[in-house]
């Protein structure tokens, strides 16, 4: 029974060691350096822990000698000096390793990377804006981050309401988003893949449902995504979607959401221009499926209670039309 429980606990603990949201995944330079440091620290401190335990057990088992001899005193002195030397050596190794890791990161990341992304925290979603300094083009999206592999990126972190924290464990680096302040975080992705970031500072009722999808892809794929993202929204294709378009443009939706290429230009909620091309809705709360879109639009407060999207009260026809339009926003 006890062994079974212990085995179960160990399995759960190990389950956290891989996957899209893991520090040991090492998809970024900072993540790899941190992972290596973590291994070294665990090894050094674990070794000394074992040494102390062995010493304690030895002290309990071995019978103390009653008479103090000169040889015994000498042996104790040597033992003490060895111990002191070991501790100094261990601490030096840790300090040097930390310094080297820090220098490695600094050497690999330029002070002014060419790719700049602004991430703004909101209750409870991420507003992401890419800005091309050369052309002045701006790409606004939400709850997703596409990064080209091997290109250092500088994230400008801001917040609109409370303190959040940006953390993609696989990439390494964690930085707070503080209202009224601008924080910087430079990352260097080194491995393609799909990862998950999570708000790492309690920010309210739906803090747990404030995730960001991170896609690290080859440069060509990133350029394709960038070009597709700059394009205006796809116009509605069929009569149902057209009715949905009408509703979105003339009713509550457009007060808060932007759909580029249409009159909808609210800046309060997430940008919906290419909503259907994202992997999830509600900041990683649900996968992007037709059913979840229906659930979300019909009753946002039932899907993610407390979020700032109000219950609009669409009837069945309006709901079908709006979802048909949103589904077409590839």
């Amino acid at each position, binding site marked *: 029974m006890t062994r079974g429980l212990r085995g179960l606990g160990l399995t759960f603990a190990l389950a956290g060691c891989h996957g899209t949201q893991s520090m040991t995944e090492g998809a970024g330079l900072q993540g790899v350096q941190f992972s290596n440091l973590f291994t070294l620290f665990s090894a050094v401190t674990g070794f000394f822990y074992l040494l102390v335990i062995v010493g304690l057990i030895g002290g309990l088992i071995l019978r103390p000698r009653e008479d103090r001899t000169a040889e015994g005193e000498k042996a104790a002195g040597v033992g003490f000096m060895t111990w002191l030397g070991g501790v100094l050596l261990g601490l030096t190794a840790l300090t040097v390793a930390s310094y080297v890791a820090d220098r490695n990161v600094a050497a690999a990341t330029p002070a002014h990377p060419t790719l700049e992304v602004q991430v703004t925290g909101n209750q409870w979603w991420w507003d992401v804006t890419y800005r091309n300094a050369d052309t002045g083009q701006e790409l606004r999206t939400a709850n997703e981050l596409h990064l080209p592999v091997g290109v250092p990126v500088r994230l400008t972190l801001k917040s609109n309401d409370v303190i959040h924290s940006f953390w993609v464990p696989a990439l390494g680096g964690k930085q707070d988003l503080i209202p009224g302040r601008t924080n910087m975080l430079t990352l260097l992705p080194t491995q393609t893949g799909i990862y998950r970031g999570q708000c790492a500072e309690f920010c309210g009722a739906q803090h747990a449902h404030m995730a960001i999808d991170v896609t690290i892809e080859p440069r060509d794929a990133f350029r394709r995504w960038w070009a597709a993202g700059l394009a205006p929204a796809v116009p509605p294709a069929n009569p149902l979607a057209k009715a949905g378009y009408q509703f979105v443009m003339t009713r*509550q939706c457009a007060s808060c959401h932007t759909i580029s290429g249409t009159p909808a230009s609210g800046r*309060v909620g997430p940008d919906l221009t290419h909503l259907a091309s994202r992997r999830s809705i509600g900041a990683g709360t649900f996968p992007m499926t037709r059913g979840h879109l229906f659930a979300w639009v019909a009753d946002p*407060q039932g899907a993610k209670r407390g979020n700032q999207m109000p*219950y*609009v*009260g669409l009837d069945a026809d309006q709901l079908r039309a709006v979802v048909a339009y949103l589904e077409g926003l590839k």
Partner: protein
Amino acid sequence: MSSRSRTSCVLLAVLALLAGCDREERRSRGTPLAEAALGGPPESILQPGGAVPPPPDARAADFEENAYAVSRGQQLFQQMNCSGCHAHGGGGMGPPLMDDQWRYGGRMEQIVASIDQGRPNGMPSWRGKLTPQQMWQLAAYVRSLSAQPREDVLSGRSDSESATEPPTLRSRERVIPSSPAGVQGTTP
């Protein structure tokens, strides 16, 4: 009184105190059916003998005395750019909202009607642009600008940038008028 019954009394008192720890309810969804009743065709605001005030609504007190509603209203006031005309309540292009003068009535129901229908000389109608629940929340905030709501209902901090100095525990430095260095223009 035995020590045991005294302990029970103390425990009971503590339990009674704990009952007060309940927070107010956050009605995040609003009440769908009742809210929908606010609709209807837009009314003309040109009526003989002044506009007919809307009937009292049971929801008014619910929203006005709810900290969550007032704070959501404060956020909406920023997000929907009410400040563009009303400033932060002080008025500008639009009338001030902090004083005791109301052109179209200062009750919750009247404020909601003004937001819903719009008013002449620039106030747009928000019908269909905001949900009724959001209008009630906005009205609760607008009321709180002048109506001195309960202390526990008010938001602890303003969402807008403020020109006034933040409250600080540090006492201000004193300016000594007799000192020539303290007077501008006298230092060499």
